[in-house]
């Protein structure tokens, strides 16, 4: 017999006479819009209040958007609630279980499949199909929000990985600052040249004990080579580690960088807490990292003049990016879904998308990349260009595979890069990913 947690919780609550409290909570719900999903007026001239949950990582962007939307929509107001990046998933799940979810959520895109498989979000396929710019939406975001051919989310903002480099150090090392690395070989040779400068300067840096950071920055090189670490439908995925030459090339690059001491010694223990600070201090030649990460670490005047970015290359060229960030999703039980969709459509307009770079985010529409945008935001234009070739693994167990100290991704990376045992690393990766994928399916 299938039991619903919600029913059990309700029954238990009744036992302890908490029904009154439940009644109080429901009395605070938002006024409903008159439009319902499926009607032609859905997302048009909605009224009432839209409860919007956004992760604190998008705080600046969310606050700005909500403020501007509320100033121009007197009949529809958005109320923003910021959720911790550590418990946003459980908070959302709890609200859905309780039958009182927000109307729209900015959810970390890699977490979307966990909910879509359970039917927790509203099917937005017909509304997304009606968008004139559908083909220009971030492919990675869309991929993560698609399940069984239906689309349950729209890209909200992009957090993309790029290759940052220090133009000043490039010049000092005799390198052309307008010719950033476009292959692994060039990354290595440029890092070697810069490392020779000495005086505390290193050619390269990475957060060597930060599993998520490494997944964010190492995988795009593999994707640029046309290879992926998992394959198959989300319900029956398999690991593609054994014999994956693109993966071997990426791990070999990092092994060479590590053994040739092209990185600071404390990179080995950097769990992400201090990631990028050495680069921002002007002591590093090359750093794979996030667009928004460096923008938030350096002075605006240093962007372009001292620090510049370029797409993360593959072994012999090509490029890709980790298509991170958040998707907009509307919980199936949202009270004001029409208002939520109206807000989402407004955010997706180019006027709003153009504001993203100044707020430390990358737009999610590739058609925003115009000559004017590139001139005004050259660093974000690099990220946005990469977005068109961006990807994010669609799996139910991303966190378990890539973001854990004991996960197979980091075990494989450590064995290959720090211990120098590539064959064992690949075995660990293949067996570890396979185990998690089998559990998930």
């Amino acid at each position, binding site marked *: *017999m*299938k*039991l*619903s*947690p919600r029913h*059990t919780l309700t029954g*238990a609550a009744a*036992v*302890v006479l908490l029904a009154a409290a439940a009644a109080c909570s429901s009395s605070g719900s938002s006024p409903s819009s008159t439009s319902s999903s499926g009607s032609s007026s859905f997302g048009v001239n909605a009224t009432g209040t839209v409860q919007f949950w956004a992760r604190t990582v998008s705080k600046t962007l969310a606050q700005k958007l909500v403020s501007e939307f509320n100033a121009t929509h007197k009949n529809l107001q958005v109320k923003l609630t910021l959720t911790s990046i550590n*418990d946003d*998933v*459980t908070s959302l*799940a709890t609200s*859905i*279980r309780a039958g009182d979810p927000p109307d729209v959520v900015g959810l970390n895109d890699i977490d979307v499949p*966990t*909910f879509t498989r*359970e039917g*927790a979000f509203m099917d937005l396929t017909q509304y997304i199909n009606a968008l004139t710019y559908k083909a220009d939406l971030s492919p990675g975001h869309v991929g993560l929000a698609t399940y069984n051919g239906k689309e349950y989310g729209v890209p909200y903002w992009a957090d993309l990985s790029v290759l940052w480099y220090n133009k000043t150090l490039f010049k000092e090392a005799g390198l052309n600052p307008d010719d950033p690395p476009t292959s692994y070989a060039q990354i290595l040779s440029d890092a070697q040249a810069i490392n020779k400068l000495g005086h505390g300067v290193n050619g390269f840096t990475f957060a060597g*004990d930060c599993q998520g950071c490494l997944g964010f920055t190492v995988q795009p090189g593999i994707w640029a080579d046309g290879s992926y670490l998992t394959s198959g439908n989300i319900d029956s995925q398999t690991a593609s580690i054994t014999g994956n030459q693109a993966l071997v090339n990426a791990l070999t690059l990092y092994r060479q960088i590590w053994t040739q001491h092209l990185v*600071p*010694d*404390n990179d*080995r*223990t*950097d*769990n992400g*807490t*201090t990631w990028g600070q050495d680069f921002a201090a002007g002591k590093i030649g090359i750093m794979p990292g996030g667009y928004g990460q460096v923008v938030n670490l350096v002075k605006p005047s240093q962007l372009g003049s001292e620090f510049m970015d370029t797409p993360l290359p593959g072994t012999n060229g090509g490029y890709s990016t980790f298509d991170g960030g958040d998707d907009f999703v509307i919980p199936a039980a949202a009270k004001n879904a029409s208002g939520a969709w109206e807000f989402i459509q407004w955010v997706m307009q180019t006027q709003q998308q153009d504001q993203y770079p100044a707020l430390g985010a990358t737009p999610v529409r590739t058609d925003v990349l115009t000559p004017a945008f590139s001139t005004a935001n050259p660093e974000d234009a690099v990220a946005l260009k990469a977005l068109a070739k961006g990807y994010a693994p669609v799996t139910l167990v991303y*966190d*378990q595979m890539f*973001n*854990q*100290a*004991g996960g197979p991704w*980091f*075990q494989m990376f*450590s064995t290959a890069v720090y211990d120098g045992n590539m064959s064992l690393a690949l075995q660990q990766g293949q067996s570890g990913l396979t185990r998690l994928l089998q559990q998930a399916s």
Partner: protein
Amino acid sequence: MVLVAPAVAMVAIFVLFPLGFAVYISLTDWPLIGPYHFTGGQNYSLLTRDPQFIHSVLFTLLYTAIVTGPIFVIGYAMAMLVRAGRFGSVFFRTAFFLPFIVGLATESFMALLELQPDSGAADFVLSKLGLAHANTAWTVSYGLALTAICVFVIWFAAGLTMMLMMAGMQGIPAELYEAAEVDGATWWQKERRITLPLLRRNIALALIISVIGSFLAFNQFYILTEGGPGTSTQPVVMWIYEEAFVQYHLGYATAGAVALVVVIGIISAAQFYLLRDGRDQEARR
């Protein structure tokens, strides 16, 4: 009965009901979202065969065994140092207790920076003393990480033991010491025959708090090693956290949590029994 009814009601609502509900969840395959199924004792059966859970339990026991003694001995010694109203006592009491007040999470982040190879204070000082290499990576090696965290926690927690011991010591009537001195008792005899026996309850309280704290260790490991390298420094609470909020196996994680509650209850009861004093026995008669 009427007078204790509010307290009983509060305990029932905020302790017994959640605990009972947790036991119920532990008997299901409760997921993050979606329907669940009653699975009986399957989660508990799996726990006994889960190598990672067993490793976490054993690691927690090892960690508890390492830190409990030094926390008590150092805390007791510090209490002896500051119990009298000598010049500077207030300063040292404050200084010894300060790490506990500042908080473990904040200090764990500070420790993380100070344990960085090449740039942290730990390597700088130890290398000057010839005790470690200047590039020692403390947090990515099992032995070094465990050593660093144990030293860090002893420094953090000894202040609380000091306060508990000092409060007990100051409650012992001075007449007892004066009578002993008249009888020619030495300092050691006074400590052994008067102070220690009369501190039995305080010692029991300090040890129980310390052991429970060690069993529930999370912050320092989560911040300093994230349970690594691999999962070698993963205490049992971090195992529960990972199962519940990363793997989303809420039923299974709750079974681990219930098992932990039972183990802590048994150990605490054993400590109470072993450290009971005459007043407890008298009260039972």
